[in-house]
């Protein structure tokens, strides 16, 4: 099997063995959830409930704050006990709605009708109302992605089942356990965009997922399952598009739609299918809880807003003192200071590192070894950007490609001088935007 890939990237340990064979387990209803108003890219949602309000599971509690935004729903049945500032998985404090459970899982009325007869606008309306956003991490509102301007013709949908971040296995388990739903979601995407072709990209370290998906699509001539080389960041949007279709998304702010492609994550496909068929809002997701020191790594199906501390309890805590907890994957995720942080729509994992694994390094002078340049999947000059940023030469940083950085972290991963390249590039990027260079 010829595996496809992209130029650059790194070969690290994927560490998926801890949780890849753990079937998805449904986490019991939490006693309390904290539901942030911003779990997506774009404007925060605006709360429509007051403290003390009784809410059902799936009830709308905050409406979309604009076109690029999504509504938020309650994930349990209970009472709104606080609307205030809570820790957010991106590392800071953000406004969230706290709901305390008062009873059993009392859902809003869900319908089940023949969704295949719905028109495109109606389908989009349902996706929008269900608050679906990208569940791979970034959290871009799905309906916005599915509504390109008139002049951008979409011919290809790519389902991202790569899951190239180490440790994470949530998407892997979904592909093994719910492959039909992924295909149904994919077909909805194809219907509303008019795409004629689809690819499902899966990394070679998930041969079982590749064969499951191949099996289920064997009668679909326009859906191809693409086996991809085990290399990080294989799941980055631009790299995945290149590996599957050989199309290059233009740099300097280009989007996949510029090359006629829309990429959606497997979890998003399932959520979309459920939203369109049952009008079920997005109130739960799969989270991988993993790490060498976690006693029982698991893939948990949890309600949005469940606290990381509850998840870790469910995995029987750790057998060593915790050094770092990471929301998301270890390459691009956020180190967070406290376990009292809620699961959001984009939380793909809770990774726990031991003290030994989370040493912070001192930066040394760059020895110009070029490792960062050799691995950069965007073909940039990370060390030069960092150097220019130290001397506040923002023009130089722009020439070296700061604005095209996808923050995959390959450069910082390989740097022998342990330079915080991603941070420096981020500084340069912000400064370039600020100065409008």
């Amino acid at each position, binding site marked *: 099997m010829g595996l496809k890939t992209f130029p650059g990237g790194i070969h690290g340990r994927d560490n998926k063995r801890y949780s890849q064979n753990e079937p998805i387990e449904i986490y019991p209803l939490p006693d309390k959830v904290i539901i942030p108003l911003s779990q997506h890219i774009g404007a925060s949602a605006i709360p429509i409930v007051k403290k003390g309000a009784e809410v059902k599971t799936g009830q709308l509690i905050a409406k979309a704050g604009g076109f690029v935004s999504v509504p938020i729903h309650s994930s349990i049945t209970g009472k709104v006990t606080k609307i205030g500032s809570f820790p957010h998985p991106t590392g800071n404090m953000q406004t969230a709605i706290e709901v305390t459970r008062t009873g059993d899982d009392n859902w809003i009325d869900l319908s089940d009708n023949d969704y295949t007869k719905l028109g495109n606008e109606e389908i989009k309306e349902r996706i929008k109302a269900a608050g679906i956003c990208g569940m791979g991490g970034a959290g871009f509102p799905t309906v916005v992605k599915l509504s390109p301007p008139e002049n951008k013709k979409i011919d290809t949908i790519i389902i991202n089942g790569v899951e190239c971040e180490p440790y994470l296995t949530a998407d892997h388990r979904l592909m093994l356990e719910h492959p039909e739903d992924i295909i149904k979601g994919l077909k909805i995407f194809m219907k509303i965009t008019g795409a004629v072709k689809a690819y499902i990209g899966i990394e070679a370290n998930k041969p079982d997922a590749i064969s499951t998906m191949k099996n289920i699509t064997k009668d679909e001539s326009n859906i191809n399952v693409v086996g991809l080389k085990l290399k990080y960041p294989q799941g980055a949007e631009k790299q995945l598009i290149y590996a599957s279709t050989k199309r290059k998304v233009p740099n300097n702010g280009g989007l996949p739609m510029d090359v006629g492609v829309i990429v959606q994550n497997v979890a998003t496909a399932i959520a979309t299918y459920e939203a369109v068929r049952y009008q079920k809002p997005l109130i739960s997701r799969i989270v991988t809880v993993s790490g060498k020191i976690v006693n029982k790594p698991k893939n948990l199906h949890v309600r949005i807003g469940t606290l990381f501390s509850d998840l870790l309890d469910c995995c029987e*805590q750790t057998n060593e003192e*915790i050094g770092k907890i990471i929301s998301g994957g*270890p390459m691009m995720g956020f180190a967070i200071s406290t*376990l009292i942080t809620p699961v959001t729509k984009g939380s793909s994992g809770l990774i726990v*590192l031991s003290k030994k694994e989370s040493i*912070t390094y001192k930066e040394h002078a760059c*020895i110009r070894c070029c490792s960062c340049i050799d691995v950069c999947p965007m073909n940039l000059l990370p060390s030069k950007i960092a150097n220019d940023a130290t001397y506040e030469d923002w023009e130089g940083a722009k020439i070296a490609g700061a604005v095209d950085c996808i923050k995959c972290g390959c450069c910082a991963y390989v740097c*022998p001088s342990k330079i915080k390249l991603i941070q420096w590039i981020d500084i340069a990027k912000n400064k370039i935007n600020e100065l409008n260079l």
Partner: protein
Amino acid sequence: MNTTNRSNSNKQKRVGENTHDLYTVSASPHIIEKRSVKSVMWNVVFALIPALIMGIVFFGINALLLTVYGIIAAIMTEAIIQKLRGKPITITDGSAVITGMLIAFNLHAAAPWWIPVLGSVFAISIGKHIFGGLGHNPMNPALLGRVFLVASFPTLTAAGWKETAYSSISGITSSINIQAVENLVTSATPLAVIKQLRDPLFVENINNVIPNASQSLMGEIASIPTIQNLFWGNVGGCIGEVSAAALILGALWLAWRKIIEWRIPTFYIFTVFVLTLIFGGIDGLFSASILLPFFHIFGGGLMLGALFMATDMVTSPLTKNGRIIFGVGCGFITVVIRLMGGFPEGVTFAILLMNLAVPLIDKYTVPNPFGAKK
């Protein structure tokens, strides 16, 4: 939030007790490769050891002693300067060891003990720390040290070659029965022999004694036995540069560890090969035998230079295309000096000159980001 509940013996903690701890926060990525500057440098030291062993085999224990003097002087200079500047002392990172080693590698084995010491002091102080230390020097410190020694003590560094235990200094066996030729092959290094052959006066003299003697000597130079001698290092020359085989072995190790990159050595050696094939002969263009380029590649300091000095990370270009230009430039200048210049060997100056061109090369070879329109 409650931050006080921090216990060191987490093993006894009950479920839920982690809840109120605060953990380390840092920017992504949260896992990184173990490789450090230190491991990179010590890998280079390790890769230079085969060449050192061959130097000891061919030139005796003095080769080892000179290398040790060079290393000690380099380390001490670095420590003193860092102490004076109030900077952390980084002598264990291995970079000074490399410089000291390379200084000695560029000397012949009969040099007095203070030559490598002086070279190392100069290389580390003027070549490296005056610019700010590791990572900031524009030129390869070891090569600067060598230039300093060659310019200051020409008789001690570039003359008085020591023959190896097994062969003549030039590594060439000549059957030409002329005193001048015999003197040449027994006292000059391989590159000096070929340099002499480019001197029209010398050629005329020997051809007057025996017709076509110059061609026969050229044939003996570009012959399999000579090149074998050069490949294994069985010739006179500097301690670390004589054995191409040992240097290649070390470089393969570094390439396997992804410490040196293929572009610079490949383009450097390839350029030398092509140019010496075209211009290397003594009877006009393309008069050289196909074996002559091998003589140029395995002779002199080319292997040491191309594999270990031109590839010095700090002083070579960042960009991939820049590394190609750098390699070709080094090859070009080396051949120009070897064939037309006043010195038999041009590797040192070629690399130093190209080092100085690095900022310019980097500036004009910034790669197009992925997805850029051509």
